[in-house]
């Protein structure tokens, strides 16, 4: 099939970018969207032009590297689909496709379709972990966990940190990402000791990283390639407010031993 692509081209972080039109005469419907871009880049390289920069790694929908806006929808807007798992059979001959990077103050553009998502890493560093003693592993099933909690924690833990929630949100809010990471640990017994601290610190960093606020539009849930529910955002809101009222600072530095 023949496609017309409008791709955002931007040579560096501080240079102005613009949409550039490319005609692609021979697209196979069995290609993935990224393979289609590979073909575009081959033709660009053959013409000694700069290829389109985009992030990708596993190409099987589990690493969270790829992702950009296709026709105004994150990852193309198909349910539970990353760009690498999106196939060209969803498009038809003669289609015009608009491709843009995620746009958010917290995600500065590196080049073309590639953005810097380090803000997500800093949110994780603030509390997206549990502190455990090193040594031999605890017996499996030694800690009782209600099945429904384990299921919800696993659903939240599916987040691959691709940034589609931020990109699809009208307010560039990172609420779905942050809440998935908070809920994933706060729903489990292992996450309890740092529960309030985690909610407080991760939300604080989320705000400091200049992400917007949640207005409950549910665009994030619809475009999340892992189908993460906004129920997690309600959990985050609850735990954050609880933490704001109840959290107390440690009495002194250090601990037993």
């Amino acid at each position, binding site marked *: 099939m023949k496609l017309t692509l*409008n791709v955002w081209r931007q040579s560096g972080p501080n240079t102005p970018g613009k949409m550039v039109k490319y005609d692609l005469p021979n697209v196979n419907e069995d290609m993935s969207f990224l393979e289609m871009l590979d073909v575009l880049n081959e033709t660009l390289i053959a013409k000694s032009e700069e290829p389109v920069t985009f992030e990708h790694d596993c190409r099987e929908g589990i690493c969270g590297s790829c992702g950009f806006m296709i026709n*105004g*929808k994150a990852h193309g807007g198909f349910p539970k689909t990353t760009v690498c798992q999106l196939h060209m059979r969803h498009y038809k001959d003669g289609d015009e496709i*608009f491709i*843009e990077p995620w746009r958010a103050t917290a995600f500065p553009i590196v080049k073309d379709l590639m953005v810097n998502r380090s803000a997500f890493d800093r949110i994780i560093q603030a509390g997206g972990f549990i502190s455990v003693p090193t040594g031999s592993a605890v017996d499996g099933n030694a800690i009782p966990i209600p099945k429904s909690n384990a299921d919800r924690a696993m659903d939240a833990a599916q987040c691959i940190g691709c940034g589609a929630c931020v990109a699809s949100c009208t*307010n560039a809010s990172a609420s779905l990402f942050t809440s998935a990471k908070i809920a994933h640990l706060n729903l489990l017994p292992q996450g309890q000791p740092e529960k309030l601290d985690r909610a407080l610190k991760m*939300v604080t960093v989320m705000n400091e990283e200049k992400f917007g606020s949640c207005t409950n539009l549910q665009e994030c849930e619809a475009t999340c390639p892992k189908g993460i529910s906004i129920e997690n955002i309600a959990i985050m809101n*609850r735990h*954050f407010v609880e933490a704001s009222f109840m959290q107390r600072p440690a009495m002194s530095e250090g601990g037993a031993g």
Partner: protein
Amino acid sequence: MATAAAPNSKLQQSLALYQSTIGKKYVVAVTGAVLFLFTIGHMLGNLQIYLPNAQEALANYAKLLHASAELLWAVRIALLTCFVLHVVTIAQLYNLNRAARPQSYVMKTPTMSTYASRTMYLSGPILLFFVLYHLSHLTTGATHPSFVEMDPYHNLVTGFRQPMASLFYIIAMSMLGLHLTHGVWSMFQSMGFNHPRYRNGLRNFATAAAAIISLGNISIPVCVLLGILGKDLV
């Protein structure tokens, strides 16, 4: 580099809560809940115009509301505080959200969001102007053609006989319906209540409440314009 030190004093904690986007959303949700309950009470008061002896019923209702000046002003101040907090906090979040995405997309297609949820920044400001007009129209009477103190029936009927005034009321109440369709559901989510068992129920409750409040209020100017209400007033 972002840092995340836990706030220590009580004041710091409450300030940190209000400075966070989530704390602000709680303020919007709680004040919104108060204003939502007010719109229900206000509509029920309005609907007394359909009682057999409407002029007397509404006059008695007005007397009841004015029975204690202290109580009336306490309620007015409480409502005004909620209204101002609701608007100011949303204005702060609006600026924050615009700053979070300074460059907009060349193409952006909505997927799951409802029309009502995407137009909150339109319905909100229209309602703000409506409240100002409504107070000057039917509370102080400054923009009313023939205002009579403590005779709401007369004021309603003669006020709504002006088609442009009625049209603005109808538009504003449609906007209130849209605003509540998203807002009433949204306040539960913002305050951390979201459970699969109640998800559809809450959505339906929000839509039904919004429809009843807006249609109940819209019916009054429509009935006045059609001549169904106010036959006894020439």
